[in-house]
């Protein structure tokens, strides 16, 4: 490459040149920097930055990479962690992904991230590269990725643009994840007009590793070599690239820069296998994936987390587009690339593994102890910075925030529409609604079988994968968020999201252990949005502390808005739980005739923000009340039930309430039930409609074998948790029989439940 690079004869803006021309104008504003940020760069360097340095600072100090608006709030996740919560944490916040000890020497790492904006512009590739990016985070921890999940939010189901996004995004997630051989074990599909111009495409990946295999992103060991491998570097994702033309005073202009990134899942699959071989052979000291801010990020983070220095020759980078300028190479977000640090003794072994998998690589430079990140272009210094100032010392903003003035009005507007007279029709309407309908049309496009370890996936409460084939040790994960609850009360909304994911994991039978989150919000420059954000973080951090599950990592996505209108505050919370043996997982449907159906928890009149209210165009009032101590007890009961074989099915109550849960449990295996609501209505002083549609928290429905009923009741009594027998499984009758109200044949229910997505997108 060097010869070619030289023949291009860029007139490069070197450090020497920067010193000689202090007055030279640089396009800092076009690169998204503020004047004070630009001035700070000058102060740090003691001179004006070179074009390449400016490129690095501008991408690394961007909101996306530096968390400059959210940092002051996110600290709470660390501050509110107790020692007990740290017990299972091997690696906490701050690394590419957190690592959790699950016992027997095994660990898992998981993280959820957003790819919202790219997915709106180019749905297929945007979603695909979202999966690709999060999977690389997992690999860079030294783990084998074992599953993905995809919480998705779209605009109104019947808006003309929604079909384009649904088709592209679902196909993109499948196209990438399926080709990587990662089972898709769960996610969400939500339709709401607030996401019209701004769909939320979040992707979660989980990986598995042995404790001793943890790899961190640091470059230590002076003299160790730095290598870039995987795909070649192209002009992908270079935001204000054209403005960088000024860094080269050449007449040959760089060619057009692509507006979107195209993913190559095949290249990533090979990269996974090749990285795992590198880990197994212990030939890399430190490793870092290349995501946002590409080489800028990888070099500055590796260097500042290690011995502090690195020396790189940038012309060694293998290029897909030879017209890229140095600044562009540093900013490029080309996919499917990794950077590693290798001792000189291991260079040959490293190269052998690359060759076996036919992966391209280039040696860029070496680790130094100078405390400087020096990047040369054909021998001339174009970057000479303290890497910490790039990677860690970005600006931090205390953005002003205040409670929205409209919130009082909204909270005062409780849901008080007339109750439907025909409960049967109401259940059918609910189960056919865009948010409650079957998501099979989506999930059928994802491979849930590959790797052979999937014990639960859609439509169960949590995805469950086996980690150890000998012992059955495994994990469960669920992701949840309710933007409407958060809109009504962001503090409570965040706590409710955590509670639901936590409850889902426990419902499957796993012990909840750790949290990852993706906070999707509007513009932080809007004080009302900023308040929603601050409240969300406070709520989530408090709730994590109360439940004793630490946040191990996550992602913040801001500026999700079209025009002046922000999306609902949407904190997607992923909870990971552990199973000693996945064989005891609890499915979300009953099967055995005569088993007793019990409801755990109590039901209040809580319809504000509910799916039923949403279906009738109402959003106001207060979200359901949450009692985290009760959630903890409920979870303990559900896990115990699974451990002691006391239940054969369980499903937690959330959106859609009891109506949704009974429908889903019956449809899971196509087995009917007879249900009586009278006792429940009497005990909780509610009517049948409220019993069915309220979204009170802390509830679940379980199916208990006859032989276990005494033990089950004793346990609930001992823990002082309300439970009530509401019905019995009935294999004879393929219907949901709500005695005294209606009899709903499962065929009809299924048709309503399954028909919606195919009708819109088929």
């Amino acid at each position, binding site marked *: 490459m060097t010869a070619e690079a030289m023949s291009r004869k860029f007139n490069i803006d070197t450090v020497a040149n920067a010193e000689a021309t202090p007055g030279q104008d640089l396009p800092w504003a076009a690169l998204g920097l503020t004047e004070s940020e630009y001035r700070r760069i000058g102060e740090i360097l003691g001179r004006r930055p070179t074009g390449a340095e400016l490129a690095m600072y501008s991408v690394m100090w961007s909101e996306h990479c530096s968390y400059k608006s959210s940092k002051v709030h996110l600290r709470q996740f660390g501050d509110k962690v107790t020692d007990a919560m740290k017990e299972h944490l091997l690696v906490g916040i701050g690394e590419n992904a957190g690592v959790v000890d699950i016992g027997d020497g095994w660990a898992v790492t998981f993280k959820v991230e957003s790819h919202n904006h790219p997915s709106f512009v180019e749905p297929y*590739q945007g979603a695909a590269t979202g999966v690709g990016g999060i999977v690389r985070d997992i690999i860079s921890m030294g783990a084998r990725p074992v599953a993905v999940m995809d919480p998705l939010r779209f605009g109104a189901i019947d808006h003309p643009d929604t079909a384009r996004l649904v088709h592209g995004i679902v196909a993109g997630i499948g196209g990438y994840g399926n080709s990587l051989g990662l089972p898709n074990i769960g996610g969400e599909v939500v339709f709401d007009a607030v996401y019209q111009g701004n769909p939320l495409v979040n992707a979660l990946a989980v990986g598995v590793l042995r404790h001793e295999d943890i790899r961190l992103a640091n470059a230590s060991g002076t003299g160790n070599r730095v290598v870039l491998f995987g795909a070649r570097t192209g002009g992908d994702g270079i935001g204000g690239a054209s403005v960088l033309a000024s860094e080269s005073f050449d007449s040959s202009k760089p060619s057009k820069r692509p507006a*979107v990134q195209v*993913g190559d*899942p095949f290249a990533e699959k090979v990269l996974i296998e090749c990285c795992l071989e590198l880990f197994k052979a212990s030939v890399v000291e430190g490793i870092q994936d290349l995501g946002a801010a590409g080489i800028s990020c990888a070099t500055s983070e590796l260097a500042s987390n290690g011995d502090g220095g690195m020396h790189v020759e940038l012309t060694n980078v293998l290029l*897909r587009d030879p017209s890229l300028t140095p600044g562009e190479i540093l900013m490029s977000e080309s*996919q499917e690339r990794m950077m590693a640090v290798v001792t000189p003794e291991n260079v040959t072994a490293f190269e052998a593994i690359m060759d076996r998998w036919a992966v391209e690589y280039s040696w860029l430079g070496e680790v130094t102890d100078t405390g400087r990140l020096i990047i040369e272009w054909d021998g001339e210094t174009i970057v000479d910075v303290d890497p910490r100032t790039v990677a860690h010392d970005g600006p931090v903003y205390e953005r002003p925030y205040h409670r929205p003035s409209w919130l009082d009005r909204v909270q005062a507007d409780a849901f008080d529409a007339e109750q439907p007279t025909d409960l049967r029709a109401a259940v059918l309407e609910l189960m056919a609604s865009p948010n409650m309908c079957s998501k099979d049309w989506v999930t059928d496009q994802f491979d849930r079988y590959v790797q052979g370890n999937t014990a639960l996936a859609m439509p169960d409460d949590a995805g469950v994968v086996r980690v150890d084939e000998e012992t059955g040790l495994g994990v469960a994960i669920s992701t949840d968020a309710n933007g409407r609850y958060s809109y009504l009360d962001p503090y409570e909304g965040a706590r409710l999201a955590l509670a639901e994911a936590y409850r889902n994991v426990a419902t499957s039978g796993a012990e909840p252990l750790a949290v990852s989150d993706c906070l999707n919000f509007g513009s932080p420059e809007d004080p009302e949005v900023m308040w929603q954000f601050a409240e969300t973080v406070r709520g989530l951090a408090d709730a994590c502390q109360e439940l004793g599950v630490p946040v191990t990592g996550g992602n913040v996505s801001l500026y999700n808005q079209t025009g002046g209108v922000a999306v609902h505050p949407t904190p997607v919370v992923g909870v990971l739980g552990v199973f000693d043996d996945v064989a005891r997982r609890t499915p979300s449907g009953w099967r055995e005739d005569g088993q007793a159906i019990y409801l755990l928890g109590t039901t209040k009149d809580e319809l504000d923000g509910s799916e039923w209210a949403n279906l009738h165009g109402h959003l106001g009032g207060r979200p359901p009340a949450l009692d985290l101590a009760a959630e903890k007890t409920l979870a303990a009961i559900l896990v115990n039930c699974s451990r002691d074989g006391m239940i054969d099915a369980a499903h937690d109550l959330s959106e859609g309430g009891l109506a949704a849960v009974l429908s889903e449990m019956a449809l899971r295996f196509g087995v009917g039930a007879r249900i009586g609501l009278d006792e429940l209505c009497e005990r909780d002083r509610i009517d049948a409609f409220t019993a069915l549609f309220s979204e009170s928290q802390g509830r679940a429905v379980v199916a208990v074998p006859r032989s276990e009923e005494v033990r089950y009741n004793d346990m609930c009594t001992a823990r002082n948790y309300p439970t009530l027998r509401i019905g019995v499984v009935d294999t004879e009758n393929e219907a949901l029989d709500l005695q005294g109200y209606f009899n709903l044949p499962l065929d009809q229910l299924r048709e309503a439940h399954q028909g919606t997505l195919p009708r819109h997108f088929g």
Partner: protein
Amino acid sequence: MPRIVVDVMPKPEILDPQGKAIAGALPRIGLTGFAAVRQGKRFELTVDGEITEQILEQARHAATTLLSNPVIEDVTRVEVIEEDAP
């Protein structure tokens, strides 16, 4: 029947994983004469009756809206072909 051909190729600056995979395979089967490969799409639209300027216009419209994704692809040709395949 007369046909209109529409050629769509990945934009030159966009990664073309398909072309890359082929370029990697060619030398393995002993074909070493090629520096790069790009894979695009070719559509043949059959027209009932004569090809009018109006129909050609329809084809051009289809080419940029339905047959290609302007974010990642270029329409490189919209043309009437009379000849049969060789």
